[in-house]
């Protein structure tokens, strides 16, 4: 089966403005990219005039909730949500129930992904650093490595004991496994549920101070430097934390990091009347942090964009702010929200998006990129900047609808998702 994508605007990491071209796909690969390709007689022609054609996105921070909380999300529904958002690869986090902390648990989740997900083999998993993510004893690291975990993390919790983290780093290093950190000093966060600042004062909510995250970022980087292991910092939310990473990178330390769209777009003022769709951990910080993180993304401090997609039931989120769980969904809204807020306004270009949300995430877990060029695997999407997307409950494929974009309309729409010879979505 051959497909000719005609007159698309091809986005690439390597040039700021998309360039008009035709793309020919045969089987699971791109077999031609040129100004004009005559359609082979047996090809389906897809007219892409005015649409952006870019490598499909890849999200390294996803909570699919299976096994354990299939009422919130399954690997199947999660993969459908991803496709709906133009994402065809993801890295799952280990805070399932039971936690992914052994070879058997890794095998189980990958078996489910192979059988159920619609983007196999592009579903990967991390493994826990410690048994049960309790921060006490090392998880079965060698066994998990054998089953293909891409890195280790106790995501959702920091390994609070630095000696345990040191040992984990030493042990993981021999398998060339990176560690990823959710950076938080739990004692400083206490029962906090939002950023400590002027809004937590007026709402009367216990705050999570910025230092809770920043101190842990500094600690984990110093440990990683000392041991010589690759450290990945998850969902950075503060300017100061980001600058700590910037300096570490300048010193040549092997540290990478990610930023979530919600930490760029929203801040604590958006919580308004206790809206739990703005409750996540790390919390939304200040407008100054939004601006600094955006500049950091433009400056290349953030290696990847990742959503921290965290589904929760409507019932759980419909509680008072302190009692509701942390986390929002993100897979379906990420691209339209970044387009609407930044690309459409010229804050950054498609090149940045392709680099930080398609190519670098794949490189982070040692996969080849999927730039639109002859010979590469065909994993790309079409995005129509002239359409818009309204995030109604019916539109969204995730089992959970806990997003601040619920029933909101954003500029742009993912109109087509192609994955290795299959059209997974077309609208």
């Amino acid at each position, binding site marked *: 089966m051959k497909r000719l994508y005609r007159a698309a605007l091809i986005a690439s990491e390597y040039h700021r403005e998309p360039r008009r071209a035709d793309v020919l796909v045969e089987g699971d690969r791109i077999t031609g990219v040129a100004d004009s390709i005559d359609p082979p007689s047996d090809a389906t022609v897809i007219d892409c005039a005015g649409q952006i054609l870019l490598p499909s996105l890849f999200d390294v921070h996803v909570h699919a909730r299976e096994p354990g909380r299939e009422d919130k999300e399954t690997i199947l529904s999660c993969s459908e949500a991803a496709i709906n958002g133009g994402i065809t690869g993801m890295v799952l986090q280990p805070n399932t129930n039971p936690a992914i902390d052994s070879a058997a648990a890794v095998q189980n989740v990958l078996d489910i992904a192979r059988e159920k997900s619609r983007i196999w083999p592009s579903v990967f998993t991390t493994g826990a650093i410690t048994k049960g993510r309790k921060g006490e004893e090392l998880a079965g690291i060698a066994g998990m490595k054998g089953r293909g975990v891409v890195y280790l993390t106790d995501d959702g919790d920091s390994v609070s004991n630095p000696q345990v983290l040191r040992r984990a780093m030493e042990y993981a290093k021999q398998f060339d496994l990176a560690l990823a950190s959710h950076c938080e000093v739990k004692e400083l966060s206490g029962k906090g549920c939002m950023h400590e600042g002027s809004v937590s004062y007026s709402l009367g*909510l216990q705050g999570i101070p910025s230092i809770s995250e920043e101190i842990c970022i500094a600690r984990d980087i110093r440990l990683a430097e000392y041991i010589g292991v690759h450290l990945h910092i998850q969902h950075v939310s503060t300017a100061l934390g980001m600058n700590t990473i910037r300096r570490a990178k300048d010193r040549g330390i092997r540290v990478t990091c990610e930023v979530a769209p919600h930490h760029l777009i929203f801040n604590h003022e958006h919580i308004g009347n206790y809206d739990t769709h703005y409750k996540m951990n790390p919390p939304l910080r200040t407008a100054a942090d939004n601006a600094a993180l955006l500049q950091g993304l433009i400056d290349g401090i953030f290696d990847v964009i990742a959503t921290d997609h965290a589904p929760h039931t409507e019932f759980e989120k419909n*509680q008072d702010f302190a009692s509701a769980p942390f986390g929002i969904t993100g897979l379906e809204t990420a691209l339209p929200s970044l387009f609407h807020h930044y690309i459409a306004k010229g804050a950054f270009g498609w090149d940045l998006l392709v680099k930080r949300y398609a190519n670098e995430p794949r490189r982070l877990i040692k996969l080849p990129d999927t730039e639109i060029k002859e010979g590469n695997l065909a994993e790309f999407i079409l995005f129509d900047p002239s359409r818009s997307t309204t995030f109604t409950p019916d539109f969204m494929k995730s089992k959970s609808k806990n997003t601040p974009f619920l029933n909101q309309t954003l500029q742009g729409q993912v109109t087509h998702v192609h994955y290795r010879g299959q059209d997974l979505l077309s609208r």
Partner: protein
Amino acid sequence: MSPRKDLLDIASLQDEEIEFILANATPFKDLFKRSVKKVPTLKGRTMLTLFYEPSTRTLSSFEVAASRLSADVTRFDVDSSSVVKGESVVDTIDTLEAMRLDYIVVRHKQSGIPNLIAQNTRASVINAGDGWHAHPTQALLDAFTLREVTHNELPGKRILIVGDIQHSRVARSTSLLLRRLGMQVAYLAPGTLMPRDTPAEITRFDNWTDALDWNPHTVYLLRVQMERQADSLFPSVGEYHRLFGLTDTRLQILRDRKTWLMHPGPVNRGVEITDAGMNYDRSLINQQVENGIAVRMAVLYTLRPNPA
């Protein structure tokens, strides 16, 4: 002035609504001097009190206020209800909705619970204190009391609020309302009980000497929760009293300057206040309690439940 359904905090009140409530409290208070203290204003209406946190004076104050307006008063007994078995607040409200109540007065240890309830009922919701967030009827009665003693001359006067600001809904609501009415507000607290971010217009003190040099017209003491000791927020009650309490020495300074003294109650004698402070002739504590009933009557009179 469009009708208001709920009273959740001070921030959402318009200036004219504040004036309307305070103005109406005066005739209600005049009623208390009569032998029959009751008017038929809310006859046939039902007010339910839903207190998830223990309270005696605020609860009684609302009950007396409602009965003086001839409303029927029902107490939802949280202790013996299914909420102790883990029923969520929203589920409880769904149940209460079937009772067709007119007013729900709620107190809860979590900030924002009254806002959540208000979104799920057609009854008028009155916040009687939620977490660290707001206690709007306390703020209104404090403002009413201060207007009485200043003969309606609040602008420019200074009030010093002393104690556990961090965990105090009273400090947040009262300071906001008094600032809106033109007063200057300062906080005095140990560093551990002072919020990191407070509104820029509020002066911050960490010792009595500087705070008294600021020359407050009124000193407002907050109740100190004994259990804060256990959270390492101050080393001992004795040390708190010595450094931040209204000691007899400090009381003498207030006496010399004819400074007014307020407290939302209940007091901890020997901690934030002494027996001598309780007997101080410019203490407004009892006046606050009496005014609380009048102000709560005015609040009930002002709110309009959504029609069924």
